[in-house]
């Protein structure tokens, strides 16, 4: 079901956490709300599920205005960060709870619980208590409980944050699998850009209560709308070089080196400051626009190696290369940048 937030505003006391947010999610789509901690992701999610009252604006499910429909009647499934399983009930009772509340008959409940337990691969755990399950299993139960009512919308608040690395990888694809299998419209709240990129159709990246960009993962990575987005997306992260515009070159701050600027950039006037973002995969030995520096840090990541190169003015560029040819810390290198792959930002952070 399509979800639309129109001019959504939320205040706590005197502070406006979200102001005039607009967001539309297509039916069957999985959208990530991505942003740093405290930017209002959970607040938005709780407004959609009705736990928070909206202080302004409208919320539509399909064409129906549900702004003032109480949470109980919205038919949303929610998965919380700590799963919020009911500790005194066994897994069966946990999953059956939404159906019991709806007063389904026993036979229907039984069938639906079995069916959903199969879907999330936990049919053998039904008579255990939540405390006897591992984190990943609890996560599956939470998903099952959220989905058993066949809700119109599935909301996930940092569902992977409490899992260890290996389980996180497994549950990432599991959640996506289940979402695609059920075809449910889903919102995933996360502060982890890898999760957002790998699980979702589109990403809405938030900063201080505003959606700063809404796009597909690929487009957002290649075409960030601002320095904030560029800095948030990508791991290892993008690095930035400051400088002033000198005709078609960027003269690096406190340095004799300069870099040619791409013709794709709408250049500001000469002498204005500009910040260039360079992703680690675009700073490589064989690229044309050369810069010299000293390797100051090496991180071996297995298949690849991450180098930090400190330039003569103290700025640091990151380069990620396949681990074929080893370099040593302290080594002087002259590697290159592909000017067409760089991202330029004005002093206020907007993309040029």
């Amino acid at each position: 079901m399509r979800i639309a937030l129109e001019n959504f505003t939320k205040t706590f006391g005197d502070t406006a956490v979200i102001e005039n947010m607009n967001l539309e999610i297509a039916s069957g789509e999985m959208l990530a709300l991505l942003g740093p901690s405290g930017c209002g992701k959970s607040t938005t999610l709780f407004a959609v599920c009705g736990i928070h009252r909206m202080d302004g604006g409208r919320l539509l499910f399909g064409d129906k205005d549900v702004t003032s429909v109480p949470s109980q009647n919205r038919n949303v499934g929610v998965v919380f960060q700590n799963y919020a399983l009911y500790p005194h009930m066994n897994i069966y009772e946990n999953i059956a709870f939404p159906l019991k509340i709806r007063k389904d008959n026993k036979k229907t409940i039984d069938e639906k619980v079995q069916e959903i337990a199969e879907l999330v691969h936990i049919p053998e755990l039904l008579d255990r208590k939540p405390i006897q399950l591992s984190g990943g299993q609890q996560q599956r139960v939470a998903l099952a409980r959220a989905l058993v009512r066949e809700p119109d919308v599935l909301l996930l608040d940092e569902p992977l944050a409490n899992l260890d690395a290996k389980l996180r990888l497994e549950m990432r694809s599991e959640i996506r699998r289940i979402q695609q299998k059920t075809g449910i419209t889903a919102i995933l709240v996360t502060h982890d850009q890898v999760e957002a990129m790998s699980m979702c159709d589109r990403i809405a990246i938030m900063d201080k209560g505003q959606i700063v960009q809404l796009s597909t993962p690929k487009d957002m990575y290649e075409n960030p709308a601002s320095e904030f987005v560029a800095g948030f997306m990508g791991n290892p992260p993008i690095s930035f070089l400051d400088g002033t515009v000198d005709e078609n070159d960027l003269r690096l701050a406190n340095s004799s080196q300069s870099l040619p600027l791409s013709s794709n950039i709408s250049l500001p006037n000469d002498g204005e400051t500009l910040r260039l973002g360079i992703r680690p995969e675009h700073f490589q030995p064989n690229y044309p626009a050369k810069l010299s520096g000293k390797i100051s840090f090496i991180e071996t990541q297995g298949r690849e190696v991450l180098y930090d190169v400190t330039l003569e003015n103290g700025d640091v560029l990151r380069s990620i290369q396949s681990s074929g040819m080893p370099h040593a810390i302290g080594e002087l290198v002259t590697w290159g940048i592909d000017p067409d792959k760089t991202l330029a930002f004005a002093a206020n952070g907007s993309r040029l």
Partner: protein
Amino acid sequence: MTSNFKTWPVTLLLAVLSLPIVIMFAYLIVDTVTDTTAGSLIPDRFTLEHWRFLFEPPQTGRADIWAVTLNTFLFAGSTSLIVVSVSVTSGYALSRLNMPFRKFFLGGVLTLHAFPTVTLIIAIFLMLQMTGLYNTLIGVILVKTALELPFGIWIMKGFYDTVPWEIEMAGIADGADRFTVWRKLVLPQVHPGLAALGLFSFLSAWSEFILPQVLAPDGASQVLSTYMQNLIKDDRAPDFNLFKSVGLFYALPVMTIYLIFNQKLMNIYGGGTKG
């Protein structure tokens, strides 16, 4: 048992220290079924006559032991019931609901909890007289309940505080109304606290002496503690063996409750964390 720590010296020390108490308890029991001449420690004969009070009609001027016991049960039971049912709801309200004067209430509850209640007894006495509840069981129950409530509310608020908000949010999202969420999802999490509080206030009322003594001293509303006091009041030859027998009879339910429920009672000190 860890081997780098010898336990027998500690055990010995504790045994010596608690010996007086053990001896007192032993004699409490022994004296109820024997006769001992004054000044001697050795009982001279076995007898059940000190327990006659259980079966024989009461002497003139004394209440029937079973009626008094029933009173005590009523007193302790009602106090416990009211304290539990008021605390279980007001504790939730103070912990979760965004109500006006919440801070003020919390402060008030805490202050009342720490307040030395004996200082109020004259005022309470006067109020009961004015309302006609003086010398009635209901009067004492009301007063005892009121004095126990701050403790109960505070304890229950503590237990509710440990229940994660997300459980309630999940319940709401699952379609349950706020009351159902409280009853089906939150209440089961605070059960240990509830049980402990119920037992606690029962025991506290069971052993209460001052309030019944001052507010319902005689006749039909006597409880066991005041009954015992009457036994030795201005009697020229007090029957201490009888007094001890009644005392043991009075203490039995308490001991039984402790034996059965000591695990549950411990909960109240954990503040809701499940051990």
